[in-house]
């Protein structure tokens, strides 16, 4: 069983997303610890990419701030080494295929294992292209996380059957970002997922309020929140950690 399963073993999972190096890596480390101290079950760490095509304006902004600050893949690896001195919850990377490919896929994925990264989320690597990295992920014991979208329809069963770690269910059409309302019929998607796998399923994209998190985790195994946290970082910068902690606490209590 993958380490990721432990995040879902004691109830619903709250999964915060944080772009590494926004505004600097010291702040990222403090924010991750604040989130974990307040009940985050799994942490999604974003390695910034120059052209994040699946992201809305908020996370695009975080990517630009991080890259402008000089963050690199190697510096993010160092951050994880530091975090792993005391952080025990599962951690996964969220980045784009080129960041992995360009670093050298084997070098990247073996480093993930060495530093304690449990999974990899690549929004531009659909089912048809997963062979690009899957053999290496299996070799090094890093779960390659599958995404399922509102438009997946006839593809849900196929993707779910081969899913590892957890399934990232995209709540809505479009890019990441806060939404006032999520209209997709997620229950019926989750039903098909359940029929095909026992791998847990967490919902992300557009979730910002405790009410939304409660609703999303009631129909799945957890809620993923990115843009709402990045907005706190945008507002408080280097002083964001306690505010993120407070926010995570409210979300964890809600689910």
């Amino acid at each position, binding site marked *: 069983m993958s380490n990721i399963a432990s995040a879902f073993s004691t109830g619903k999972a709250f999964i915060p997303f944080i772009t590494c190096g926004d505004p600097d890596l010291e702040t990222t480390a403090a924010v991750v610890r604040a989130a974990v101290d307040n009940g985050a079950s799994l942490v999604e760490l974003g390695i910034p990419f120059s052209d994040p*095509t699946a992201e809305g304006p908020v996370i695009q902004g975080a990517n630009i701030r991080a890259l402008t600050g000089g963050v690199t893949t190697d510096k993010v690896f160092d951050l994880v080494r530091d975090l792993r001195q005391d952080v025990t919850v599962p951690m996964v990377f969220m980045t784009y295929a080129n960041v992995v490919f360009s*670093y050298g896929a084997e070098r990247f994925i073996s480093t993930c294992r060495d530093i304690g990264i449990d999974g990899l989320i690549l929004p531009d690597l659909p089912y048809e292209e997963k062979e690009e990295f899957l053999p290496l992920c299996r070799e090094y014991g890093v779960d390659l996380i599958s995404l399922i979208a509102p438009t997946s329809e006839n593809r849900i069963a196929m993707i779910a059957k081969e899913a590892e770690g957890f399934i990232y269910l995209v709540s809505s*059409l479009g890019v990441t970002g806060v939404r006032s309302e999520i209209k997709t019929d997620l229950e019926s998607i989750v039903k098909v997922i359940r029929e095909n796998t026992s791998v847990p399923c967490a919902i992300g994209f557009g979730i910002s309020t405790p009410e939304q998190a409660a609703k999303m985790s009631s129909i799945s195994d957890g809620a993923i929140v990115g843009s709402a946290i990045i907005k706190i970082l945008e507002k408080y910068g280097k002083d964001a950690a306690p505010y993120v902690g407070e926010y995570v606490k409210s979300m964890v209590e809600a689910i």
Partner: protein
Amino acid sequence: MTNPNGRFGIHGGQYIPETLMNAVIELEEAYNKYKDDPEFQAELTELLNEYGGRPSRLYYAAKMTKDLGGAKIYLKREDLNHTGAHKVNNVLGQALLAKKMGKTRLIAETGAGQHGVATATAAALFGMECVVFMGEEDTKRQALNVYRMRLLGAEVIPVKSGTATLKDAVSEAMREWTSRISDTHYCLGSVMGPHPFPTIVRDFQAVISKEIKEQMLKKEGRLPDAVIACVGGGSNAIGTFYNFIEDKDVRLIGCEAAGRGIDTFETAATVNTGRVGIFHGMKSYFCQDEYGQIAPVYSISAGLDYPGVGPEHAYLHDIGRAEYVPVTDEEAVNAFEYLARTEGIIPAIESAHAVAYARKLAPTMDKDKIIVITISGRGDKDCAAIARYRGEDIHE
């Protein structure tokens, strides 16, 4: 050349969000249904000929040939097409396909504005809604084309993210497509992006080399020794190359925008300076840093100012079938002025990159050799920017 997964050697593929997968599968199925359908092809040919103005001329540039003193030079006049560039070949094909698929809205990216204008034109003709994404920097460089698109009824959205040029316009169009798929076709303008776009766009542009071949056989009774075209994403180049790929004696030469030079950071010469990566839905060559961050490329030409190249070009480079040469801003501007004065033809600054290389190549070849240069577009849109490059303060 395309295998079922849309690969050209190691290049190509479908590196896109899951949200878009069914959309590209639907597109591939529709394309496979219509590409060999005689009715669809007859309708498209009628559109290309009667509306688009095809076939375009293959013009013998006698003065240029004499002046350069080497190979005979022919110009494939895609600049004479309706809307002023080769872009219309692809757009009429995709718009017709979108109509058959029941789509009512076209979205597109544009660099120089030629693809945006062509898409806006097709949308007007087919009665479709049209939204064009254009880097804010390019809306300034190509203000006339922004006006043309709006005149044709399209909404033009200036993209401010990243370098505010073509790559950011592509990213934004992809983001828009993920948010609205059911009624919207993404009319991609070059032989790039996820499968099946590189194949579809190539097939619609292959009319260029099909005509060159027929026209050349008629005029000269033989094939040319070299065909030359500019390469950004590479649609006019693949159109120019495609029907000659199996004719091994025909040199295929793509001219990349070197900007201020391939030894500087201000360049967009992807094959010459980039390395293999994954971006915008495809594996291909990209200008990028050691960590895979896409480089902020530069060229005077908004249409070639792109950090990647279509996957079939990457493959033709890998197997040594096509050559990709860098041409600087200065060489392109000189060629822009040269063709205007020598032949009375003002080429697009993109196409001027191909003219520039031909000026170097022709004198090294014997007089019984033949070169075809594809003039992919006309240069009216570039006059103000070139004047400014030369220090004249002209505003449109």
